[in-house]
């Protein structure tokens, strides 16, 4: 089958009435929650995860993907209008986007973000369609040793890209992996770390963990600050830019799309890295008389395109290898597993409708975002001013109902509360919870591959170095870790994150 018949199969799925409806709901809910204060894509997806469990897998994934880019777009909107980036990917958008808004060019900045995102999304969709199948074919030849090495590399990449201390990120991944081992052992069925309680027999529920750390934990953290949000209301009507202005954004959008797509594929990448890289490149190339940081439109066009391109191409390792490159993809993998689908290279051949349906729905969803957001911007602006006071009881209510609905077990509610406290303290102590989630999601698989590889090699750990692909991946892992630990790189890295 060539790429076009595959895409046709995908569109058949994505354009079915049910799926288009759920895609729409996802995009709408995602944007709606994304513009609300204190809620980024991860928290949004975690909160809405339980809603999708009753849906068929294709529809559920389409809706979740819709929520993801909806929330991301919502984050950009708040970044531009209130100078409060809702998610790390739009931190750089806030720099120039908000300055533009202050100069009365909010409409132009929002238009640029929307169009740039749409263009990047379109390109990324085709990239996924083109690159994912061959990558999956390569992955099909992987044995357990290669898989183990690939996962280790993925986790190492997560470490290098985490903010702050490297050793804390390693500790968080390890803790995530450990929490993932709770429950029945895959091989012997022996209960592990259940401490005599039946409630732990199936291990810790992934959704309870994610909702606790990213939902409840965030609420507690937000109670610390009493920021006032004042969005800029002026000149939203001038959405369509002049020809001159339009010319200004073309090249940054193209460059941003390229950079974002590339960095999104890398394990540990995703949206954030791309937007930062794009911003610094645009800053160097800019011929704009307006300096960066004071409302240069390139500083919105490039990063926003990169952001969205990266968000989409990060689906490539998730869909083809079953490896999450960022916490959002970890949530997606968790959702797939709950749907009874083991993420990995087999998904393309065994569930082509799911694979191609999700990919084409991304394009459909991006088109919806464009159509939906430009006219609805007035409503989003009003939502941004919802005081957090009114908001957090609602988040708590949704989280409580959602987590209970997983298995109608009050224990999941207790777990969520406990992980909320843990999540809060981890952030407070500068330990990022995102690597913890990554570790938790792939912990069981990592162990399975390790045990299988060791069984095949009769207990000889050299197997990981004798197989060329696995050896290469592990060497890359070591290089990645050594590089971040080098004193000179460490300093630069700290500076880069501070910027």
């Amino acid at each position, binding site marked *: 089958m060539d790429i076009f018949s595959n895409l046709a199969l995908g569109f058949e799925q994505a354009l079915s009435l049910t799926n288009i409806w759920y895609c729409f709901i996802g995009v709408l809910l995602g944007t709606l929650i994304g513009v609300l204060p204190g809620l980024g894509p991860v928290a949004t997806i975690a909160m809405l995860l339980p809603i999708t469990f009753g849906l068929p897998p294709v529809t559920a994934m389409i809706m979740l993907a819709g929520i993801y880019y909806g929330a991301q777009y919502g984050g950009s909107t708040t970044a531009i209008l209130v100078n409060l980036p809702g998610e790390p990917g739009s931190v750089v958008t806030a720099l120039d986007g908000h300055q533009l808004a202050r100069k009365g060019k909010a409409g132009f900045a929002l238009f640029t973000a929307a169009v740039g995102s749409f263009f990047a999304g379109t390109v990324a969709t085709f990239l996924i369609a083109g690159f994912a199948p061959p990558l999956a074919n390569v992955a099909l030849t992987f044995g357990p040793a290669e898989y183990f090495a690939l996962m280790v590399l993925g986790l190492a990449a997560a470490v290098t890209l985490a903010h702050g201390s490297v050793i804390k990120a390693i500790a968080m991944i*390890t803790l995530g992996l450990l929490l993932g081992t709770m429950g029945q052992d895959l091989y012997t069925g022996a209960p592990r770390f259940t401490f005599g309680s039946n409630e732990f027999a199936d291990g810790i529920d992934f959704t309870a963990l994610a909702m606790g750390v990213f939902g409840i934990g965030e609420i507690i953290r937000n109670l610390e600050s009493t920021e006032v949000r004042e969005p800029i209301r002026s000149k939203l009507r001038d959405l369509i830019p002049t020809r001159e202005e339009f010319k200004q954004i073309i090249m940054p959008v193209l460059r941003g799309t390229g950079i974002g797509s590339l960095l999104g594929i890398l394990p540990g990448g995703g949206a954030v890295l791309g937007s930062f890289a794009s911003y610094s490149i645009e800053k160097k190339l800019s011929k704009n008389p307006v300096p960066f940081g004071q409302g240069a439109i390139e500083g919105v066009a490039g990063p926003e395109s990169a952001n969205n391109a990266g968000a989409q191409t990060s689906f490539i390792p998730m869909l083809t290898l079953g490896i999450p490159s960022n916490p959002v993809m970890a949530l997606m993998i968790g959702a797939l597993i709950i749907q009874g689908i083991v993420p990995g290279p087999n998904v393309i051949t065994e569930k082509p409708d799911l694979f191609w349906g999700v990919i084409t729905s991304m394009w459909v969803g991006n088109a919806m975002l464009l159509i939906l957001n430009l006219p609805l911007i007035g409503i989003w602006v009003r939502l941004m001013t919802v005081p957090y006071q009114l908001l957090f009881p609602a988040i708590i209510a949704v989280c409580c109902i959602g987590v209970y609905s997983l298995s109608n077990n009050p224990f*999941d509610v207790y777990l969520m509360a406990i992980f909320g406290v843990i999540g809060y303290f981890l952030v407070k102590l500068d330990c990022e919870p995102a690597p913890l989630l990554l570790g938790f999601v792939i912990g069981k698989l990592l162990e399975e591959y390790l045990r299988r590889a060791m069984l095949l090699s009769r207990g000889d750990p050299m197997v990981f170095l004798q197989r060329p692909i696995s050896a290469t991946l592990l060497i890359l892992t070591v290089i990645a870790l050594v590089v971040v630990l080098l004193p000179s790189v460490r300093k630069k890295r700290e500076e880069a994150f501070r910027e």
Partner: protein
Amino acid sequence: MLTIRNPKDFFTGLLLLAISAVFAYGLFELPIGTAYKMGPGYFPMVLTIMLTACGLAILANGLLSDGEAVGTIPWRGLIIITVSVLLYGATLKGLGMVPALALTVFLSTFAGHGWDAKAAIGVTVVLVVACVAIFVKGLGLPLALFGPWVGGY
């Protein structure tokens, strides 16, 4: 005499060591096996050792290098939020969804600032009605609106 020079790292280290200790205790009942035929305890054992090592390193950093203070913790909000969530789990089966959710939401509003009872009751009513409409009527979640403790079934 050791002094805590980097409180954030110091407490992270302590926390990680405490967690490692819990897992180490749990490891006792698990057969470790060999590298060839790993038992259920092998992989967790490696991880526990790694976590302990990380904990010790971070703890040492907390004593040997300077760093920021942990900062103030909103204990009031933290406790109220946690208790209100726990309350939902504890009362849902007995009270049913409507009273349990109302209690949780009402209690949680006290975590914020500047609420008066009227506003808190108003938000509670609106949220409970909205949640019943969306989750029970709309999405069809199998939740009893009123439980046995208040005369439901």
